């Protein structure tokens, strides 16, 4: 299979997957219990039955689910219209986009740090197996991986604000809203510090553990013995022969994690009241804001699929064996 065929196939497969997700996403919110109109009205019982019916018609909820609502919805989605958020009374796509930047900043930073530190630590631990470095890194990673996200977040929040005077909520201090970016960078960094630290520690453990076992497996391979027999130093063997092979499982993990970053941030953003997608999802869930949830699910699913496609392609670049199979 040529490289072009391979890429094309992966792309088409991703498109099909996205379509399936759209269908499931649509059905899911139609079988969920609860009446959207009631949700919008809340406890205001004085709204008459006629008004309620008018609301249903306004949202197109009086029509049959299939095919009318389905076709209507898909058509709207294709144009980028994900509906109106019931709780915020603003277009869903606009709401999502306004929070996306904050989340990508937090998650991106945390992931990059976690990947870099975790992979380095795992490499060292595997290479210096059974030494103090290995035992220390292994213990730390297992503990870090096992700690619940919200718990670590709360501990850091308490400790950080009590002892270091770090802010407890938001992405910047209220008085800085609207000021030029350059002048508020220190303030942004102070707000980012704790959630990023939490995120880094939580993901670091996983990367470290996978990298360690991967490098151990690779180091037992015959081609490593060949490389040593060629007269290479340990560093040369590690750098030129072991690293690339050992990185293969990590690439998959990175892609999967990046895909799930949006959902993974729910806990952290909620604990730190960080104004990103995760917190938005939580709000949408609590308020049963179906259009917003639906949009959120769609964004989530598409980002997971794209991340997977990226992983497949990157994997093929790193491992020449993949394209054949």
């Amino acid at each position: 299979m040529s490289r072009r065929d391979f890429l094309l196939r992966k792309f088409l497969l991703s498109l099909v997957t996205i379509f399936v997700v759209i269908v499931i996403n649509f059905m899911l919110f139609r079988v969920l219990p609860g009446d959207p109109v009631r949700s919008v009205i809340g406890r205001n019982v004085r709204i008459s039955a006629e008004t309620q019916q008018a609301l249903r018609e306004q949202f197109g909820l009086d029509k049959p689910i299939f095919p009318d609502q389905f076709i209507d919805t898909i058509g709207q989605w294709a144009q980028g219209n994900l509906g109106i958020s019931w709780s915020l009374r603003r277009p869903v796509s606009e709401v999502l986009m306004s929070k996306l930047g904050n989340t990508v900043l937090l998650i991106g930073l945390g992931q990059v740090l976690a990947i870099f530190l975790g992979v380095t630590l795992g490499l060292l631990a595997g290479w210096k197996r059974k030494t103090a470095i290995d035992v220390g890194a292994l213990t730390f990673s297992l503990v870090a991986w096992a700690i619940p996200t919200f718990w670590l977040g709360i501990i850091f929040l308490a400790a950080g604000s009590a002892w270091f005077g770090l802010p407890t909520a938001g992405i910047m201090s209220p008085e800085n809203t609207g000021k030029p970016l350059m002048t508020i960078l220190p303030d942004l960094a102070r707000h980012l510090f704790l959630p990023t630290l939490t995120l880094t520690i939580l993901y670091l453990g996983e990367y470290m553990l996978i990298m360690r076992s991967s490098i151990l497996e690779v180091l037992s391979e015959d081609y490593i013995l060949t490389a040593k027999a060629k007269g290479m130093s340990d560093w040369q063997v590690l750098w030129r022969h072991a690293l690339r092979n050992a990185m293969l499982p990590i690439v998959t993990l990175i892609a999967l994690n990046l895909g799930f970053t949006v959902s993974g941030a729910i806990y952290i953003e909620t604990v730190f009241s960080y104004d990103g997608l995760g917190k938005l999802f939580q709000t949408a869930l609590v308020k049963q804001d179906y259009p917003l949830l639906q949009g959120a699910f769609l964004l989530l699913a598409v980002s997971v699929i794209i991340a997977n496609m990226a992983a497949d392609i990157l994997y093929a670049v790193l491992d020449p064996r993949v394209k054949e199979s």
Partner: protein
Amino acid sequence: MTVQPLLSVRHLTTEFQLAGKQIARALEDVSFDVMPGKTIGLVGESGCGKTTTLMSIMRLLPASGRITSGNVYFNGIDLLTLSEHEMRAHRWKEMSIIFQGAMNALNPVMKIGDQIREAILLHNLMPRNAAEQRVGELLELVGIPRLRRDLYPHQYSGGMRQRAMIAMALACSPDLLFADEPTTALDVMIQAQVLELLKEIQKKLGLAIVLVTHDLGVVAEMCDDVVVMYGGKVAEYGSAELVYNQPQHPYTQRLLEAFPDLSRSIDSSTDLATIPGTPPRLNALPPGCRFSPRCHKSMEICTQIAPDLIAQNTAGNAQHLAACHLLNKLEIKNS
């Protein structure tokens, strides 16, 4: 005028640390010589220390392995006294190795040509294009078209991979080539081709080969000398001709009986002989001669005292040694 041996292994003893502080003595008192340009075969069942011998000589034992005593002289230098840094300069430049499964011995994510070039540039200061030229020559030497340098190991067939491995082993024109069961993973036709290639290259380049195998037919065809190993010790050692025609050690005799003789008619109703039992576990070696529990000629002394290697009377310069109490008539009478 006598020719000095290229490689001289003396009383090599290697131990492995097992789980639970147990020690397995994988090699004990192994000695043999490799003459320049000659081929020596290391034979014996699996687990008799053949590969450990090679790994000890190249000092590539895993972390649990340790050479506890002995010397390995290469061109007069004791390799075991060198620092790791000095040893690295000897590897591949003077002695290279090819393994059983060339599939796994080549890095799957590196082009074949790059792997060969890497070996060249590790030990030689030369411009990249000169190294590239050499890669082409090496590939052609083993019968692979130059253009195939850009392929990855999985795109080669088994036989081609072993050829590429041989080309890589020749990258720095070594004096000595270790071949650790180079044909075991290949089918019979390809086996013959690879062996033929090794012989051809030896003739052309004059390198010495240490061939590890349990295929006695290969030994008969390829080797000048043979070391028969059992339980980490040398059971019999001598010129291939003498060991084949006048095997002295019962283990060698049984090994040869267990090997099909194609000069006999194929529909012969006699089954091939087998040696009952398995080689000893290296952390639970029997006292006395290590072969005694399986030996059909075992005597009382065999279970008590380990026999020494005894030189056999041979015509001319050929040497022939075997470690068996049967060969020491005096001892038998006294016991």
